[in-house]
């Protein structure tokens, strides 16, 4: 079972299918027949769907590194790491489609001249800007030119983007949308677990140091 999962997650084709399939969902009338919002305003449905998918893919890529820290020996988690860049760039592509769809929905760019000032839109715009920069700096050549230290530092901006997207998603609705809990909840739990683990380990090391009579002079 584990090896099968590891095999699948190792395959680029499988991961690509997992990332592309949700984007095709609204084009598949079989799945959307029950939803009157499709018939009433199909453009809005697609707009929401692309934004939602962008957020899901973003959370997925953010889950990769805490998962590696928590389950450092579990093969499926290890092999999937090789797709980080692919999944990350996919999140940007979905966000770009969502933004493009926004302009279809609005019927042009005229409304954007004033709308960008709304905190809700501005926050989406900044998040999109970050994802754009991160996607643009994912090219091998750029990574080399930046150097891994600076690259890593720059790419921490993805956490800022995630927080902005969370705000953007919540404020898109009149009442609090419950789906943000099950979408961002696992990410928060995984990050807490990573931090918790690091703290516990750190304490363990300190305790060990003291037991050996070592430690820093600060003690």
């Amino acid at each position, binding site marked *: 079972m584990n090896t099968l999962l590891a095999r699948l997650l190792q395959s680029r084709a499988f991961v690509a299918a997992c990332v592309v399939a949700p984007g095709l969902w609204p084009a598949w009338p079989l799945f959307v*027949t029950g939803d009157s919002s499709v018939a009433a*305003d*199909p*453009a809005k449905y697609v707009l929401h769907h692309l934004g939602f998918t962008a957020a899901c893919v973003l959370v997925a890529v953010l889950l990769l590194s805490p998962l590696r820290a928590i389950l450092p020996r579990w093969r499926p988690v290890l092999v999937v790491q090789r797709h980080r860049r692919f999944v990350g760039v996919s999140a940007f592509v979905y966000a770009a489609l969502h933004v493009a769809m926004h302009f279809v*929905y609005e019927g042009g760019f005229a409304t954007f001249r004033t709308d960008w000032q*709304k905190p809700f839109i501005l926050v989406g715009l900044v998040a999109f800007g970050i994802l754009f920069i991160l996607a643009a700096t994912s090219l091998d050549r750029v990574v080399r030119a930046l150097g891994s230290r600076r690259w890593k530092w720059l790419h921490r901006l993805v956490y800022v983007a995630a927080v902005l997207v969370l705000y953007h998603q919540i404020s898109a609705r009149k009442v609090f949308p419950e789906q943000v809990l099950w979408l961002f909840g696992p990410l928060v739990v995984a990050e807490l677990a990573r931090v918790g683990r690091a703290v516990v380990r750190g304490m363990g090391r300190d305790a060990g140091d003291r037991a050996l009579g070592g430690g820093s002079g600060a003690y």
Partner: protein
Amino acid sequence: MHIRIRKDWELPESAATDEAVACSAGLGRRRFLRALGAGLAGAALAPALRAATGGFPSAPDAAYPAGDFKITPENLATSYNNFYEFGTGKDDPVVAANRGWKTEPWTIELAGEIEHPGRWDVNDLIAKLGGIGQRVYRHRCVEAWSMVIPWNGFPLAKLVALAAPRASAKFLKFVAFNDPSSAPGQREPILDWPYVEGLRLDEATHELAFIATGMYGKPIPNQNGAPLRLVVPWKYGFKGIKSIVRIEFTARQPRNTWQQMAPQEYGFYANVNPTVDHPRWSQASERVIGGGFFSGKQPTLMFNGYEKQVAALYAGLDLRRNY
């Protein structure tokens, strides 16, 4: 010969049939019907629980010539609903409101600062007020989308006259039903139940203010607020409280549910106003439901196009502060 002069708030009925509009929405007819089938199946399976059948059948009024306004396809107006008592999804109410929720018999209570308080059976009330008529109104949701709907019902002013307000009555407070056992949304703290709305007395007696007991020439479906709901076409849709059980005439301005929920975003007046934005989105334009994928938005009109009729109600009022 009888010549009928159409008042300009009586929107002309377009010649477009539901189907023609559905096709212009870019959906093939088959697909369109299939798309709605699942949602409507829930409604069809439910036994006829509709209330307020008084005055029906009421045929659409042929005296209105075709005009620019396209009536929203009936199957969209009756399946794309904000009725949080039955869930926050637009497609929730058409299913959840037709799972045995009884809207007949139904009584409505008139109370407060009036000469004739009491409880009325809805059908008796309709008969007492002289039956129902039809009006085609624009409907503008605060979420920046719009429909055009032929409502059946009676002017709210008639009901106010029946209640006979005292001099102390300045406002109307409308209260919706509260029945968590039938309404799944009411089992959750989405809003502060029951839903409450309010109007100033002079707004309520304005000739445009309407109580709908039907739409598209038929009794109003549960998901649209059976058996009777408020329709105030120059205000955002959330003012149109559904499934009313009580109207209280008060001296003090009532706090409506959305105002209570987020006072910085939703006010008491909620007049449609393209120059005063919602804090999170623009109100300058609106999506037309059933308008098609690439239709873009159309400009929103001051007081939703009823400025000539209602602007005088708000003379001297700062509409920016009293949003």
